[in-house]
């Protein structure tokens, strides 16, 4: 049987985490079909068909799918579920919202947030904020699986030519209505995929002081992250939160500034390749995961850091 991956997109382009999920799905079974549910999303269908790992694109296009509503997506997915051994999507807010609704109606115990495919029925997943890894085997005949995107490489996006099959829309729910989305547009790299992330915590003391972080981020072409404490305090908006209940990031370089390092924050960043911690409290737990720790007042260290970066002839971007 084939595996079915549900694509996340904005009707114009595929969201990057779907490409990571494609890689994971193809490790479960190479006969990978991708379902695209959208409105006027022909371009997205075309770009998915060009992903070499994709064998077929199922494209459902109707104005009722202009905005993503889990109830409406679920009805479509259920109509096609019987042809597939696995239903898969990314474990971000898109997939976390959607997959359990699908799984429950198929009477499947979902396997959430896997970081490794061991075999088609056995997976590795973090539990307790990543403080333990569980090897789990699904005994359900059909499986619903969500993928931690940062644990898999993004799939190649060119060279393929999968068939695009048009599929009919399904019934629309009357009980859920999309009102609006406040999306903050930014020229910076996306937090989930950036090569460098610099994050600020409560130590920044105010939203204005985040400019110290922003200046360094501009210099390094880095994404900006934050601890929950900084978001709760209103220094920065929620989409920057890194941690157990926020985003998981695995950049080449993670710079934690004024972040003490609660286990909930570490859950979101401790797989980063190189970790730098700047904190004036030498006992802060963040130093236990840092490759390079600088015990210093961030209000002095960050401007100096920028100055030193400016002295370098070249900076990798």
């Amino acid at each position, binding site marked *: 049987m084939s595996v079915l991956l549900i694509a996340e997109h904005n009707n114009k382009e595929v969201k990057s985490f779907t490409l990571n999920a494609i890689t994971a799905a193809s490790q479960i079974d190479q006969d990978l079909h991708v379902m695209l549910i959208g409105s006027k999303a022909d371009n997205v269908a075309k770009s998915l068909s060009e992903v070499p790992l994709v064998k077929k694109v199922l494209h459902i296009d109707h104005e009722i799918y202009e905005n993503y509503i889990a109830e409406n997506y679920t009805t479509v997915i259920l109509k096609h579920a019987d042809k597939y051994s696995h239903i898969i999507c990314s474990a971000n807010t898109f997939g976390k919202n*959607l997959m359990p609704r699908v799984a429950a109606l198929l009477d499947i*115990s979902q396997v959430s947030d896997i970081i490794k495919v061991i075999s088609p029925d056995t997976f590795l997943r973090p539990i*307790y904020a990543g403080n*333990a890894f569980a*090897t789990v085997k699904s005994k359900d005949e059909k499986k619903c699986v969500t993928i931690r995107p940062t644990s898999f490489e993004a799939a190649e996006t060119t060279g393929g030519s999968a068939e695009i099959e048009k599929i009919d829309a399904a019934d629309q729910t009357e009980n859920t209505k999309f009102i609006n989305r406040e999306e903050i547009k930014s020229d910076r790299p996306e937090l989930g995929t950036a090569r460098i992330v610099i994050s600020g915590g409560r130590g920044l003391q105010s939203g204005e002081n985040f400019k110290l972080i922003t200046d360094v981020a501009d210099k390094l072409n880095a994404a900006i992250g934050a601890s929950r404490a900084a978001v709760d305090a209103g220094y920065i908006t929620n989409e920057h939160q890194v941690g157990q209940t926020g985003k998981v990031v695995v950049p080449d370089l993670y710079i934690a500034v004024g972040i003490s390092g609660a286990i909930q924050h570490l859950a979101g960043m401790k797989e980063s390749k190189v970790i730098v911690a700047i904190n004036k409290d030498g006992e802060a737990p963040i130093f236990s995961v840092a490759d390079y*720790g600088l015990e210093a007042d961030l209000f002095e260290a960050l401007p100096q850091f920028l100055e*030193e970066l400016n002295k370098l002839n070249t900076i990798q971007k």
Partner: protein
Amino acid sequence: MKILVAVKRVIDYNVQIRVKGDGSGVVTDNVKMSTNPPDDNAIEEAVKIKESGKATEIIAVTVGEEKAQETVRKALAVGADRGIHVKVDGIIEPLAVSKILKKIVEKENPDLVFMGKQAIDDDCNQTGQMLAAHLNWPQATFASKIDVNDKSLQVTREVDEGLETIEVNTPAIVTCDLRLNEPRYASLPNIMKAKKKPIEQINASDLGVDTSPRIEHIKIEEPPKRKAGVKVASVEELVQKLKNEAKVI
């Protein structure tokens, strides 16, 4: 309006998790247990809605072993009116919990069901969405703001891109984010009063729900350890190391 709030007993969020040597799980003996943090937000929100006059009754429900009752008792101390404890021993998966909660919803007919968006032990993030599916109710997940209208709710959801607002007709399921509100502490008099509030005990087996696990835990292990890092003395040294040793800038 009647609100049902589901709460779960988990290892306290401040406890450093230790994995058992035999790979069978994590150490829970003599470890501090608490209510799953976003479930506290769910209770708080229900209490606030009741205080605003829009809800008449709050029922706290938990599914789990004998001691799980503590979480219901805590919910009663901060403002829930009565409790339900569905007793079941051993590992119970979100799918089974959602089926049990469906039975409770059918019995109690609430207008709203609140719970945390995710439990911090298994990190599954499934139960609310699954319950919504079983009941064919709308779901508003990861809520950071809830406005209650007559027959609907406007819910602001924390999503990857920022904030999204949806409107759902009641009855509905809402899963709560930590930023929804600031959970209150129970006062001593309220803790005493809560001891007199009723908690109904039901055996999961009496509800006719199959709770046997569908997922086999083959092994629980410690994640790979990071090798110890170094402290640097100055910003100059840090930049030199990042450039020449780690080669990341």
